[in-house]
């Protein structure tokens, strides 16, 4: 071996790196002192993941975009606010309030809106009925979620919209749909600066979706100051906003921090003001700790449940489904999975007496009864199956499934837990080939028949994960949708709820809380059905 050639200087290369590193490693560990002044007027919010679009109409706009457009765009109308028994604030689905429209009246044809005359978009252009017409044409034309959502209120075609003059706008309705007006208060029907968007549209993209995805074309209370997708969104107050009282917060910074532990640490140390949509255990402990205020609101018309596919044996056997309902370890789930941040939906009265939804099922954990039902069904030796969960909701679904798996084992049902990646979950439930699964569903519009229409109706929508089809059930649901007599309406609800509890294609578990934790000086948080943050009533002080 002879290897002492004259080679250029690799040691020098490493030395260079070393020197560079040494220069850099002068201790600079301390945090920079925060600029105290801007801090007072700025709300710092941490979330797990943020919006992927500044425009709710774009394909694939995620739920976080609902909250963003809520603040950056105005709609014609909005909902009122009420105080809940625990003192927290919530939107009030029974009160509709003016936003861009000062007033409106129902006519034979539909609804006529009178727009406020002083409203301007963020670039100073006045808001006119032409903008409303263009925006509404857009939402029913682009397809996907916005179009679907508006169809729920019988709003489906551009021909239904008419700009009568600059400040009068008419929506024609084919039927007297009681959901039409409420549907105009959801995040979808935003009013856009049509001239601005048209200027940036292209022949391939006549609605300018590519542009609005990244740019602000609104006239809402907040303007988008900067947006780094996947990192940070900065909103500043729009000083010329006229559709309501000027918000108190001048600036809002939303940072994405994927780790729940980090989000909690940031809040506890006072580095941020708000942590939104946090895991139940953190909510419970932060609430107990008392250093920050925690507000939890039960998510309306929402349930976590165990669904069984009635088209796949042995879950086609009602006795097996009832056995599963008796085998669910309800209380351990409330204690160790939800940490009490939910309303139990089990152990209710034998007979359905309430027309509320969600309401507790009459089932409670009773392994002996479950075993007896299994024997009656001819499965005293049990069977083997696959229990599917959505990995995107693993925080709740995984411990829940683990407890369920153990309990089902006691009545002879051996399960393998199948974690379906979040991206594939919707495709998986659309295929309806999962024998038994854990999932959650919630409806924006707070009506029992709305929930049942998606979850139990024979139309077999994607959220009817059990493929449950029963003409008797369909008849009751359809009747409730059209019933105007209150007593009869409530009877219909009680009937379809009883039927659901008898047949048990899905086992209700709990109604989950939407939790927010804030520093004590943050006020004005309001719960909204769209589960986004409304910064307009919020303040620091």
């Amino acid at each position, binding site marked *: 071996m002879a290897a002492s050639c004259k080679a250029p200087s690799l040691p020098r290369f490493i030395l260079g790196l070393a020197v560079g590193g040494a220069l850099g490693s002068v201790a600079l560990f301390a945090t920079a002192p925060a600029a105290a002044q801007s801090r007072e007027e700025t709300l710092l919010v941490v979330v797990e993941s943020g919006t992927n679009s500044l425009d709710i109409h774009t394909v694939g706009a995620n739920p976080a975009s609902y909250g963003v457009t809520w603040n950056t765009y105005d709609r014609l109308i909005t909902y009122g606010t009420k105080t809940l028994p625990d003192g927290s604030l919530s939107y009030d689905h029974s009160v509709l309030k003016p936003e861009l429209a000062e007033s409106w009246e129902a006519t034979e044809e539909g609804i006529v809106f009178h727009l406020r005359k002083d409203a301007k978009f963020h670039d100073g252009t006045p808001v006119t009925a032409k903008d409303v017409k263009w925006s509404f044409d857009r939402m029913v034309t682009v397809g996907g979620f916005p179009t679907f959502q508006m169809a729920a209120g019988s709003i489906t075609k551009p021909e239904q919209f008419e700009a009568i003059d600059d400040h009068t706008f008419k929506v024609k309705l084919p039927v007297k749909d009681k959901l039409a007006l409420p549907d105009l208060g959801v995040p979808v029907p935003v009013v856009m600066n049509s001239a601005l968007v048209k200027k940036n549209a292209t022949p391939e993209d006549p609605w300018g979706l590519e542009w609005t995805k990244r740019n602000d074309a609104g006239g809402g209370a907040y303007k988008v100051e900067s947006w780094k997708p996947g990192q940070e969104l900065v909103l500043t107050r729009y000083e010329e906003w006229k559709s309501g009282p000027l918000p108190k917060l001048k600036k809002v910074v939303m940072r994405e921090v994927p780790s729940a532990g980090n989000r909690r640490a940031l809040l506890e140390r006072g580095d941020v003001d708000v942590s939104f949509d946090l895991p139940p255990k953190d909510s419970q*402990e932060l609430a107990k700790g008392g250093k920050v205020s925690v507000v939890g609101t039960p998510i309306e018309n929402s349930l976590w449940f165990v669904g069984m596919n009635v088209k796949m044996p042995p879950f086609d056997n009602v006795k097996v489904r009832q056995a599963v309902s008796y085998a669910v370890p309800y209380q351990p789930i409330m204690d160790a999975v939800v940490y009490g941040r939910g309303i139990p939906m089990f152990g209710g009265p034998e007979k359905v007496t309430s027309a509320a939804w969600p309401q507790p099922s009459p089932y409670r954990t009773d392994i002996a009864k479950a075993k007896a039902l299994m024997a009656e069904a001819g499965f005293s030796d049990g069977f083997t199956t696959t229990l599917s969960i959505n990995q995107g909701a693993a925080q709740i679904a995984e411990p829940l499934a683990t407890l369920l798996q153990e309990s089902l084992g006691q009545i002879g049902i051996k399960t*393998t837990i199948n974690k379906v990646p979040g991206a594939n979950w919707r495709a998986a439930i659309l295929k309806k080939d999962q024998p038994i699964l854990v999932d959650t569903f919630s409806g924006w519009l707070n009506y029992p028949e709305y929930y049942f229409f998606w979850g139990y109706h024979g139309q077999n929508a994607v959220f009817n994960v059990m493929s449950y089809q029963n003409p008797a059930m369909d008849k009751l649901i359809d009747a409730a949708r059209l019933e105007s007599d209150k007593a009869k309406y409530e009877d219909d609800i009680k009937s379809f709820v009883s039927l659901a509890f008898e047949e048990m294609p899905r086992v209700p578990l709990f109604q989950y809380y939407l939790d927010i934790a804030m520093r004590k000086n943050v006020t004005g948080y309001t719960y909204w059905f769209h589960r986004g943050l409304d910064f307009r009533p919020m303040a620091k002080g």
Partner: protein
Amino acid sequence: MTDTATPAPAPTTAAIAPPLSPAAATLKHIRYVLSENPVTAMSFAGFGIMILLGIFGPLIAPYDPLASDTAAALQPPSGAHWFGTDHLGRDILSRVIVATRLDLTISLAAVILAFVVGSVAGVLAGFHGGVTDRIIGRLVDTIMAFPLFVLAMGIVAALGNTIGNIVLATAVINIPFYVRMARAETNARREAGFVEAARLSGNGTFRILGWHVFPNILPPMMVQVSLNMGYAILNAAGLSFIGLGVRPPTPEWGIMVAEGAGYIVSGEWWIALFPGTVLMLAVFCFNLLGDGLRDIIDPRRRT
């Protein structure tokens, strides 16, 4: 133990003592290395314990590793639960013990697969050169050109998160290291005197590769093997962290750490700490073992 700058050559007791059988000489050498190097001795001991836990784990575990007890959830370490309990009230000590078998299986299987495929390909490429080298080199380049952890993620995500696929993904991303190392080491020895001598004395290619080249490249390869054992477990843990690990509720160190990581900030440090420590010790053991093995196998030190 000496403190001199020269690497202390082993006192050649074998030369003085009456000749021993090869097996006995090897044993003697191993004993010598272990007594000279306490860290290696410890790592061997640790490896032994892990093997024992892997075999007898389920018998030793004080509790059923799958049995939940939500009334006793999140208990700190105590006399009843030495390592505490997790979020579902399962005994962490039992889960850590029982997980040993699975973790050893995954890492061993992945490393053996990668080692066999990688060293055969590498030695062939390094020795033959030419077309063989080019084809193998191209394949390796292609694998290496992938960001490896993301490739592993992609494989598991595309094929499904079963143990077999985790092993496969881990092996695939490690194969290039073996190939490259085996190739480089073989290449540098291709023209070496002992290879030439073996060739002149009429040995066939495979004999030369198997009996002369391979033993010579084994020491650096063993370093790689020991490192990879650790990486294999860490790789599985990383996959678990992003949700692509083995299925719940199977106890596995990586998943336990990943699950426990979320509880650190709220003060339940034991959930992640104990499996994390055991995971660390295991990886530690494998890594130290590699160095120790090198000392044992290295022909130079055997004089």
